[in-house]
Structure formats: C-alpha cells, structure tokens
C-alpha cells in the first residue's frame, strides 16, 4: 500500500493513499466538525462544514471528500475557518424550523449539538420558511421535510445502500428537497419501510411513525389485556439509550421495564424465532430432500425484504419461505394458544411488539387474512426500540437499576438459535443447526457455523452435512440482493442447477442489529458490537438448538401437532403477491 506523508496543524501524519483529510485528522485526534458526512456513506461535501485550509489553495477545502496528498500542509483551525464554519451552521439553522423542544430528535440531534458546539446564541439570518406537508402515509416512516438539512444521507441510503429508489432529490436551488419522485406520497412509492433513512438522518426530518401515546392509552384501559414481546436485536441495543455500550445484553431489565410499564404478559420474540426455525427448517428439508417446492428457499422474516421482493422480484415469490416472521408467530399464538391456556378473551388482548424495525409497523397489516390468523389482528402495534426507550424514560424508570426478570411462560423461553436472528447470517445459522438435525437425526458437531458470520455484504459457502453439500447465500442491505438473485435467475434461464439451496436476506446492513428502528448514530462498528452481543447471548444459552426448546416442543405437542402441520399452516404461514412499485 502506498503511504502519503503530510502535515496537519504542523503535526506530521502518515496515512495510506486515498485516505480523506477528515480521516487523517481523526488519526491525530482532530475531529473536524461535520454534518452530512456518515461513515456508512459516500462523502459528498454537501453541508460545507468540515472546512480546512490547504496551503496553496484559495478556496477552503472539504476534509470529508478530499484525499490527503503527499506533502500537503493542512490547517484545521484558525479564525477564518471558524468564522466560515460558523456562518454555514447559522445558514443551515436559518432554513430549519428550530423547534427543538418539540422534536423527537431533541437531545439526539446532530445539528443541535453542532449549534451548541459553536455556541450560537443568536442567528443573524432571518428564518426562511416554506410550507411542506408532513408525510405519514406509510404509518411506518414519517417524512418531515421542513426539518431537512439536505445532507443527502437518506437519498444515498435509499438509492445506493438499499437500491430502493423511493427517495430522491427534487427541484434545485433553495427549493431542493428530498422526497419521493413526482410529488407522490411515500406510501405510493417503492418504499419498503426499512427505515434506514431514519436511522441515518442527522435531524428529525425522517422519523418512525410514533405510536407510543396509543400504547400508553391501551395500557391504562381496564377493558384491555396488554401483552408485549421483544425482538432479538432490541436487547443488545436499547441499553445505548441509557448510556450502555452497544452489544450489552439487557434482556432481563427489558422484561422488568415492560412489566413496570404495565404489560400483563411479557413474551420474547426469540421464542417465535425458534418456532420459525422449526417451520422453516422443515420447509427447507421438504424442498431440499423431498423435492417439494422451489430451490433456493429464501428467508422471509424481514418484512422490508418481503416488500422489496414483492415489488422488484415478483417472479421469485415461489422461492420464499411461507413461514411468518417470529413476531407475527408470537402474535398469533398469544391470541390462540396462550389465550386458550390462560382463559383470556383474545378480543381483549392487545399485542405490542418491540422491534428494531420500522417495517414491522407495516408488516402487521400487510396481508388482510394472514395477519389476522387468530381471528383478530395478531400484532396490534409494533414499536421501535427508539419508541420503547422514550416510553421508559417518560415513565421515569431507572432502566439500569432494574432487577433482571424472566419472561412469562409458554411464549417466553428461547434458545441461542432464536437470539441470533437479530444479526445477519443468524437465521441461516439457526436454520442450518436444526436442518442438520432433521436431515441426519443428530446435531452438528459444533453449533457454530462460522461461515454464516461476518460483515461482507454478500457471503456464500457450501456446508457439508455428512457428505451432502448445501449451498448457502447470505445478503444484507437490499442493495446487495440484486447480484445474488441475478445468479439464481440466470441459472434458471439456462436450465442449470440453482447456485444456492438456501438464501438469507436481511434488508438492513448487519441484519436487525442495524435495523431502521434501532437507536441513532449507527455505524459499522456499532452494528458489529450489537451482533457480538447476540452471539454472546447465543453462547451463554442453555441450549443453542431451536428443536431443543422445551416450550416449543410443548407447543407442538399440545397445540400444533408437528411442524408444517395443517394447523401450523393456517396459523403460522402466509402468502405473497406481486405489488406495484408505484401506486399511481
């Protein structure tokens, strides 16, 4: 690797060629202020805050998108730079509503902290206000253009990272805006509700559709019986809202907090994940060994991915696992199995799911029949990790001081296989552990299938199951799906053997750990830490195989008979249909 040597504020630095000035500055503990820059994304220099001076150049230079060159002499601080950066911040503030106190990003807003850092007490520039309509049409992700600072992160995420193209830049000049194309609503666009835009937005311009007030209302309604479930990835991320490190396992405190909030039944989506594995591994074995159905089998527990496939790859519908996602399974079972066992009128049950995801808000209504398999809406409200954190804070619950509690019986017990659903490759690893058992009658030598782990956008490998080779593909970030599916399509066109037998797709980078509903400020390293937390949870579990979950066994014995039984199909499976990318 070629190295370049240069001077930053008189300090000599040596970095590899192509390193941005911004990164080079970080290497010597200089954090040049930024707004639009994000480590996940391509630096564009849109905001104009990370200004530095380079000897010999008249204009100031954006540190984020200019590489350090051999012999450069960079200045990162002098009165002129501070003045220019400050004016830029003031200008951005002048085109921002500055309604910080009533914004959901209050306290976690990147522009707010920038304004604080620059000590802006009075803005010399008058407020510029245009009328924008708040777009709540998806009931999952909300666009509030008035607050947009035109950093371009969401557009980059939507177009390049996710390959969805629901958001774009419209118009130009001061009238430039990020929005769906042609003035349509987000709901009419190809938006898959993954919420990565909201996870990357530095301000409150894209947020989750907040349903905390609705839940609070239900919790105090004496006629209702409120129950709740938490998704795998929530437990390793919610702590961040309370000062804990990403990846800290806060499961016990979460159960406790939910009870304090007033939920009468506290379940775990991980239980549902174990059930999913029973169904999906059976489905896989049926297709792989018995030739019933198309190969590759593609996972379907990510609702954003399901929406993406229904819009962009309807031809692949036959490849999808018909098994519902874990939280939908827990929802259905709560209003059937659990309700019967406990003698509670399912009509009175309100099921809330706490998810790392904004698309789950959409999933609970995505199919008019299948999502009401219990006879009622199986999951009534889905809240994001961020919303739950706010509810806990509003309730004044000292989260970190809570005792560790356990979940309620029947729908609470989980295995290590269930918990790793929350990271990329986890569903695959869990499914393969059980598929191995189903195919061979014994567990694999080690529960760990290391090839499923890692952070590469696309991972593929061959698993040897006692001489039988299973070809596996894993993708995360919908932007990475195309390449994988193209391979499958091309092989099919040529009449060749499918290149994969089993494919896992998660719409968000890192899987649910990096979900669009998780605490803000996500970066690659945070996603990795959360994933590590889940792996740790897996390793310390009593059992790491879904088929060894006692509660799951009981469920099949007492209620569903066996995986993929007719009853299981009625309650736990769903169907898919081609969807228009644009509803206009």
């Amino acid at each position, binding site marked *: 690797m070629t190295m370049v040597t240069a001077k930053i504020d008189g300090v000599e630095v040596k970095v590899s060629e192509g390193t941005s000035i911004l990164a080079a500055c970080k290497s010597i503990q200089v954090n040049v202020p930024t707004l639009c820059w994000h480590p996940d994304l391509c630096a*564009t*220099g849109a905001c104009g805050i990370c200004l530095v001076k380079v000897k010999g150049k008249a204009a100031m230079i954006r540190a984020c998108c200019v590489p350090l060159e051999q012999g450069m002499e960079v200045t990162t601080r002098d009165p002129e730079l501070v*003045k220019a950066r400050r*004016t*830029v911040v003031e200008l*951005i503030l002048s*085109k921002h509503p500055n309604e910080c106190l009533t914004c959901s990003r209050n306290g976690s807003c990147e522009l707010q902290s920038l304004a604080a850092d620059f000590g802006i007490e009075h803005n010399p520039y008058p407020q510029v206000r245009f009328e924008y309509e708040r777009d709540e049409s998806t009931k999952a992700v909300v666009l509030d253009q008035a607050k947009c600072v035109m950093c371009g992160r969401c557009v980059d995420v939507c177009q390049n990272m996710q390959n969805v193209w629901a958001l774009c830049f419209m118009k*130009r000049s*001061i009238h430039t805006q990020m929005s769906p194309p042609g003035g349509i609503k987000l709901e009419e666009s190809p938006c898959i509700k993954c919420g990565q835009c909201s996870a990357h937005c530095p301000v409150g311009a894209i947020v989750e559709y907040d349903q905390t007030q609705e839940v609070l209302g239900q919790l105090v309604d004496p006629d209702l019986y409120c129950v709740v479930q938490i998704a795998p990835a929530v437990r390793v991320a919610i702590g961040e809202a309370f000062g804990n490190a990403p990846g800290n396992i806060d499961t016990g405190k979460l159960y406790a907090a939910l009870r304090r909030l007033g939920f009468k039944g506290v379940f775990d989506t991980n239980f549902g994940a174990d059930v999913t594995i029973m169904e999906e591994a059976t489905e896989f074995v049926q297709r792989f060994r018995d030739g019933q159905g198309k190969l590759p089998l593609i996972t379907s527990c990510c609702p954003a991915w399901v929406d993406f496939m229904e819009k962009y790859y309807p031809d692949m519908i036959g490849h999808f696992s018909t098994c519902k996602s874990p939280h939908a399974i827990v929802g259905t079972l709560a209003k059937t199995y659990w309700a019967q066992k406990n003698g509670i009128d399912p009509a009175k049950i309100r099921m809330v799911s706490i998810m790392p995801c904004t698309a789950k808000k959409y999933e609970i209504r995505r199919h008019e029949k299948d999502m009401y398999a219990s006879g009622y809406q199986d999951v009534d409200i889905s809240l994001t990790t961020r919303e739950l954190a706010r509810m806990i804070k509003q309730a004044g619950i000292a989260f970190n001081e809570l005792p560790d509690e356990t979940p309620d019986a029947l729908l609470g017990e989980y295995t290590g296989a269930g918990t790793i659903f929350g990271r990329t490759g986890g569903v695959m690893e869990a499914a393969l552990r059980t598929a191995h058992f189903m195919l061979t009658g014994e567990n694999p030598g080690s529960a760990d299938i290391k090839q499923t782990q890692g952070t590469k956008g696309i991972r593929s490998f061959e698993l040897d199951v006692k001489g039988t080779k299973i070809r596996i593909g894993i993708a995360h970030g919908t932007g990475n799906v195309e390449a994988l599916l193209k391979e499958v399509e091309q092989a099919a066109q040529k009449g060749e053997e499918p290149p994969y037998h089993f494919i896992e797709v998660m719409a968000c980078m890192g899987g649910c750990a990096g979900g669009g509903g998780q605490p803000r400020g996500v970066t690659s390293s945070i996603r990795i830490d959360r994933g590590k937390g889940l792996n740790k949870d897996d390793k310390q579990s009593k059992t790491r195989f879904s088929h060894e979950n006692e509660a799951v066994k009981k469920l099949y014995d007492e209620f569903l008979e066996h995986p993929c039984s007719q009853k299981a199909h009625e309650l736990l499976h769903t169907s898919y249909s081609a969807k228009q990318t644009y509803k206009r």
Partner: protein
Amino acid sequence: MADGKNDKLKELAQKQMAALDKLCEDHKNRHYLIRLYTCDAIGCHSGGSSDVIRSLTEVINSHGAMEKIRMVPTGCMGLCGKGPLVRIEADGVKPAMYKLVGDMLARIIAAEHVIPLLKWIEGGRKGEFTTSQFLKDNELCLDLPFFTRQHKIVLRDMGHADPENLGEYLANEGYDALKKALFKMKPKDVVEEIKRSGLRGRGGGGFPTGLKWEFAAKAPLVEGEKFIICNADEGDPGAYMDSCIMGGGPHQVIEGMMLAAYAIGATTGWIYIRAEYPLAIQRLETALRQCKKHGILGRNIFGSGWDFMIEVRYGAGAFVCGEETALMASIEGKRGSPHMRPPYPTQKGMWGRPSCINNVETLAAIPIIMRQGADWYNKIGDEKSRGTKVFALTGHAKHGGLVEVPMGMTLREVVEEIGGGTDTGNPVKAVQTGGPSGGVIPASQFDAPITYESLNEMGSMMGSGGLIIMDSTDSMVNIAKFYLDFTVDESCGKCSPCRIGGYQMLKTLEKISKGKGEIADLQKLKDLAFAMKKASLCGLGQTAPNPVVSTLKHFEDEYTTLIKK
C-alpha cells in the same frame, strides 16, 4: 482477409478524399460577379433575415440574374444591434453594408443597388458605386471603429461564409490543420504547439489549454476510452458568443475538437450544447452530417488510420452545467450537481474515463493557431493573456454586438471606440464582465487592459465574454440583485453555503432595494459573501457574491442612499 479489409478501407478513404477535393475545387471555381451576404446568425435570424433573403432572391430572380450573384446566408457580422444586416461585395468595388433591413428595404436594395451594380460591373466599371440618398441613409459606414478596431481570428469567417457550406470551409483552408496534424505531427507536437501559443481557456477560468491537454494526454485510457468534451452550454445570461461561433463556424469548432482529440488521444468527442439554441444546433448537426458523409468523422479519417466520432447532447437549462463536473453528470443522465475535485476530469471524468473539457471559443481558435502557428498567435495580445477574446457587447452600447479584440486592449477602447459609448447619450457609468460570476468595473478604471489578471484585480473576471455597458441611470444595486437572483435560482442546491447563503443574500438585497435596509445589512452581505466564496463547493457558489461585492466596493454610496431613504 485482414489485408482485403485494409484495401477496402484504403479505397474508401481515397474515394472520400477525392470527393472532398472536388467539393473544394468546385467552390473555388465558381465565380460570381457579386457576393450578397446576409447575416443569418441568431440575432438577425430572429429579426427576420430569412424573409430578407427570400425578398432579395425574388427580386434578383425576376431580373434573371441569379447565376451571377452568390447569395450567402452567413454567420454573425457583429453589429447585432443594427440587424438584420446585408453586405454587398464585388471584386474591385467598395463594399457596402445595410442595417435594419426589412422586407421592403431588401427589395429596394436588390432592385436599386444589386441589379444596377451588376450592370455597372458588367459595363467594366470599378471603384465606388453610387446609390440613391434613400439607400445611403440606410447604409452603415464600414469605417466605424466598430469594424476597424477589431482583430478577427476566431470570427474570421463569420459574415463572409456560409456555415452550411463544407466546400467553402475547405476552400478557406478548412481541415488543412487537421490533415497536417494527422500526417505530419505526433500528438505531443500538437500539445506542444498549443502550449507555446499561450492559449488559455475562453470559458471563463483561463486555464492554459496546452497544459490541460498535457494532463489529458498523460491519462491512460479507461476501458479503452478517453473523451474530449466541447462545452457549448453557454449559460451567461447576456452572452451569445458561443452560440454565434457554433452557428457561424460549426466546422471550425469540429476541426478544433478533432485536433484536441488527436493531441490528447481521445476516442470520442461530446458536444454539450444549450438546448435554447435551436439554430446553432441545426447548423452544428448539418455540419456533423456532412463530416460523416465525407469521411471527416468516422473510421480511418483521411486514410490516416485514425478513428473519431462526435456525439451531440443537449443541455436543459442549468447554468451550473457550465461547471465541468456538473456538465459530465448531466450527460451521464444525472442532476447537474458538481462534485469536489480531485479527481480532476482529465484523470477521472465522465463514466470514469479521462475527459478533457474545452469551451467553444477555445476550440474554434485551435485550427487557426495550428494553421498559422503558435509563434504568430502568441505575438497577439498581452504577455500573460495571448490572442484575442470575443465579447458580446450589450446593454446600453451604442454599437452593440459581437466583437473580437486582442487581449490587452483597454476597456476604454472597447467601450468608447468600438462600442461608441451609450445609446442613450448618458455617460457610461460602468461595465459588467464575467456574467453572474463577474463584477462591475467603474468608468474610472477603463484604462486597464483586458487581461485575465487585470480583470480579476478589479474584482471582476474575464468570464465567457459578456460585456454589458451601463449608463448613469442604471442602478448598481439592481444589477447586483439581477445577477444574484440568477445564481440563486441556478444553484444546484447541493451545498448549504451556496443554497442558503445566496438566498439570504438575495433577501437582504431585496430588503435594501425596497428601502427597508439597515446599515448593518451591508456587513451581513459581506459576511455572507465571505462564507460563500470560501465554503461553496464549486465555482458557481464561490463566485456568486462577486456582483454584490464589486458593486459594494465601487458603488457603496448607491447602497447607503437606498438605506438612508
């Protein structure tokens, strides 16, 4: 088999060359007693030159004299403010030019000047032909400084040649420079020649053209490709040089582009032309068709073994697309948003291929420099700014139009002599150069020479060539507001200093011009100008405050008067 193919190619090239030679000879051999030039550039064309040509033709036809008279629709004759223009030339006879020619006047000119002149010549006469007093009153004096003080190099053929006539271009040494380069010079010799000529980019920046070519020549092909791009997206709202050069000398631009392509090793040429110029587009596309038909573009050009093609793409009304990275994004089918450099286009340009972007006027100068030599060219003009520059002299100019002057000429000469002062009779207050990126220069500084450096020193810039004369009644605050309004609307919206800074600046100016300003607003304008200049991503934003800064510098009293009101 390969040999057979080669033979065929060779044969085709020979055939094409022979056809071209014939085209050229045919043109040279046609002799006419009178040449009747009608300016058919955009200004005169819009003023009705097609009707003028029709009327002239009708009358001449009715006398059965068409065989002896060459009717030539030409490129810009220069004095656009007095168009449509008609010029009558004959060997040994003093030429005459008519101004503001309409349908009626055209008929009278044909009947009472052209036809009698023909008979007069056929009678063996030479010298000065006399016409009626009425016609004399409609004539333009060709001894005006407007005509005599110019130095036409790039505009050499404008007003004297039919832009749609390839034979005529060939007869005027057209494509000779290209042949010379292809057969007698190595690419690096061409680069060297242009370097030595001292030619600098005429699009506004003034970057040495030869140096840019050298960078581009050094860049290796990417996936077998390298591009030469002609920037014909003339966006300055008061300048139309490129439109006239394209429309009046399309072959000159094509030849310049081909020489550039040969010099830097480009595989394809792209012309990015403003969609609002349908006439220039039409002339350019005609010329390109001719080139393709005659093998000037395509495979094995002139039998040299060199292949080259040119593609045309239209702009769509975005001033910022004059910026190189934005222009390339636009051709790529994206928003015209600039990106930070490096990488420079000559290293990594359109679709990642090395791309060299030159402006129309720059490219139009190339064939002439190559024909006459760098030594000839670099003797013209000023030490650091060689050659000539074309200006669109407009506003309150008495004699407004397209002019070409040697660099180093003083503003006074251009404004007062060539331009003849103001059309209102009021004194000249200032000129504006450089369009929305430039500034105003007060009359007190008119003795400064026109060079890149001196215009910069005065707070303006060369720009693409708009030169607007303002008289004592023109408000400087208004002119600043006009330009800022333009750049604010044209901001691509990507970077906040330009997007919001410009808007805030405009609002402040509007406040001042409504008489609601405060003295503190002047400081606010200066602060915003500083931030925009320093922190904007591209040239548009960095230079957008110039009209405000320069009017504040030279005419602050006009601001304070408005504030005190």
